[in-house]
């Protein structure tokens, strides 16, 4: 583990901004933070809880041209490679773990998604441990935590007057060597680091019990409880847009001029009305009940069955931003306690 005096962080960021395309947390109003490309360290603000929108949009953007088509039938895929490597500084451990899950979706054995994977392979991620988790966070339920290192190349933690830097992957090792001003950590730093890690993990009160949840939900598919759960949901899809693990998308053609245009991929949501609407008029998931069931089952039963990890990382964005304050942790608790079938 290496350490760096706090005031030197800006020089490190400036160095990174010079060598790479640096993306870091910025904020216009000090309330809502987002990851944006910065030219230097002046606008970077590391005093934040988590970004408002998840960093998935840096790899899986909301609107992306798959290819352009022309009158003569020619298809032209936009250039995916960029000359400069990209560094994301200050991603939170939950979002980094979410990217590991998205890798499993976009990079499976049979079909690889070049748009996502090119960006992914071209990016080095510096994650920043959380010292002040929010009341909506529940990452510790998913065997990660405020100081988890899954999915990060270099793990950074804020000691108050020091930052610790720890290479997790060899991509991280390689970039860490280039940074100047880092010293080896002494014993007292390591013990402080562990104390900090324990303290922030203890601050997380919200928890859901995941043991055996995937199977339990399978035989609760038509539990009466679903009826109550979906009633207040207005199916706006904000939860899926802000969620770091939601990856459903739509593919549409947009005409841009005579006989030419682009086939684009845009974010979609299982909660939106036409998600499974078929041309024949049939819709296997017509109402709120089926849509909410799909959303919960996909994250807490289908994904565990297919990828043996959960489709949620406990970042709490869906709880914090739901217009009707629907709470996924409460939903799971209610389902756990509910009866699987109506009592005959």
């Amino acid at each position, binding site marked *: 583990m290496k350490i760096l005096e706090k005031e030197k962080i800006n020089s490190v960021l400036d160095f990174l901004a010079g060598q790479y395309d640096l993306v870091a947390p910025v904020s216009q*109003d*000090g*309330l*809502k933070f987002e990851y944006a490309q910065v030219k230097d360290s002046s606008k970077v603000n590391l005093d934040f*809880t988590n970004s*408002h*929108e998840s960093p998935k949009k840096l790899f899986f953007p*909301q*609107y992306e041209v798959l290819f352009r088509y022309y009158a003569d039938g020619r298809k032209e895929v936009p250039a995916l490679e960029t000359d400069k490597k990209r560094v994301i500084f200050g991603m939170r451990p939950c979002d980094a773990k979410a990217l590991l899950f998205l890798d499993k979706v976009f990079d499976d054995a049979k079909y690889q998604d070049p748009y996502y994977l090119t960006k992914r392979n071209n990016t080095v991620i510096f994650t920043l441990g959380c010292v002040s988790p*929010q*009341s*909506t966070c529940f990452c510790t339920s998913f065997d990660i935590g405020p100081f988890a290192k899954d999915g990060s190349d270099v793990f950074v933690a804020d000691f108050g007057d020091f930052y610790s830097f720890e290479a997790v992957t060899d991509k991280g090792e390689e970039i860490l060597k280039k940074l100047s001003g880092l010293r080896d950590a002494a014993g007292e730093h390591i013990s402080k680091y562990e104390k900090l890690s324990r303290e922030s993990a203890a601050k997380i009160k919200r928890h859901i019990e995941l043991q055996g949840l995937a199977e339990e939900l399978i035989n609760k598919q038509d539990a009466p409880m679903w009826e*109550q759960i979906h*009633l*207040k949901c*207005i*199916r*706006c*899809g*904000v939860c899926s*847009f*802000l969620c770091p693990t939601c990856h459903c998308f*739509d593919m*549409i*053609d*947009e*005409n841009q001029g005579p006989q030419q245009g682009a086939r*684009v991929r*845009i974010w979609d949501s299982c909660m*939106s*009305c*036409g998600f499974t609407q078929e041309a024949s008029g049939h819709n296997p998931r017509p109402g709120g009940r089926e849509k909410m069931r799909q959303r919960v089952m996909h994250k807490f039963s289908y994904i565990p069955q297919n990828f043996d990890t959960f489709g949620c990382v406990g970042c709490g964005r869906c*709880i*914090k*931003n739901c*217009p*009707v*304050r*629907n*709470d996924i942790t*409460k939903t799971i608790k209610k389902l756990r306690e509910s009866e699987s079938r109506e009592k005959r």
Partner: protein
Amino acid sequence: MVDLEKQLRAQAKKLLEDKAVDCVIGYENSDDPLMTTPCFITAPNEVDRLVLNCLCGNNLTKYLIGRKEKTAVVAKAWDVRSVAVLVKENQVKRENVIIIGVPSLRIVDQKKIIAHLNGKEVISVILKENAIEVQGDVFSEDLLIDDYLQAGCELRDDIDDSMFDIVIGEMPASKQNIDDDDLIKQLEAMSSEQRWEFFKKEFSKCIRCYACREACPLCYCKSCFVDQNFPAWFSKSTDLSDNMSFHIIRALHAAGRCTDCGACFRACPNDINLRVLNRKIAKDIKELFDSEPGLNPKEDLPLTSYKPDDPQDFIK
């Protein structure tokens, strides 16, 4: 405020016990101390979940659309007007709904409070007579409700009595609204270039999640113009021109119907001030046609009626 809650629970219990309604739609506490959450009470013994205070923001009338069973709904002044518009547009059968009106209830603007606390997290809230005490892990502060009212909390004394089956608290003596038209007046005073810059900044925050549309009680189209692909009116991208076009047309589709309930404003995850366009249209319609929607379910809505002598000085 506490005895309003008691009255509401008593009324709800009676309605459910007499089987007058199958369900009472109201508010209950949620994990977010600054916001209650909608709840659907179907059994008399569950009425104690119902709460009624200045944190009851959501407009519950959206849930009435398409509901077959007889339902009671807790509705603030402007929510009642939403029902009047929905009844006029045949989306809700008036005899199918029992409106429990709370005509004098005003709500606080959660986003104003968060901005004031500069993002410090609120752990719990204590409701006082005309203030709320917000407590965090290291701070606690009393906020006067009147300082943090949600803009547009218009109390009206001219809503038709037929819209109130049950009234909790008293009817407002006179029309009192928070005149936040000052923002609109400021904008009107600006040059068109400055206004364009203002709205450019606002609508570049939009991520097209359509929470505003899904929260609005008057947005109930089977297929929204913005979701259509043939013809694709506007691109699904989030660049400025498409965002701006979506919001202009969304506001125009609510023209002469919007009762300024603030549902779109509250639902927007990116804090876009969505009410400005709707409020401006409502102001124009009041000045041009002296008509306001949702005061009386029998009255024609402004844009689906006309008068021979409507103003036309802008037409060559």
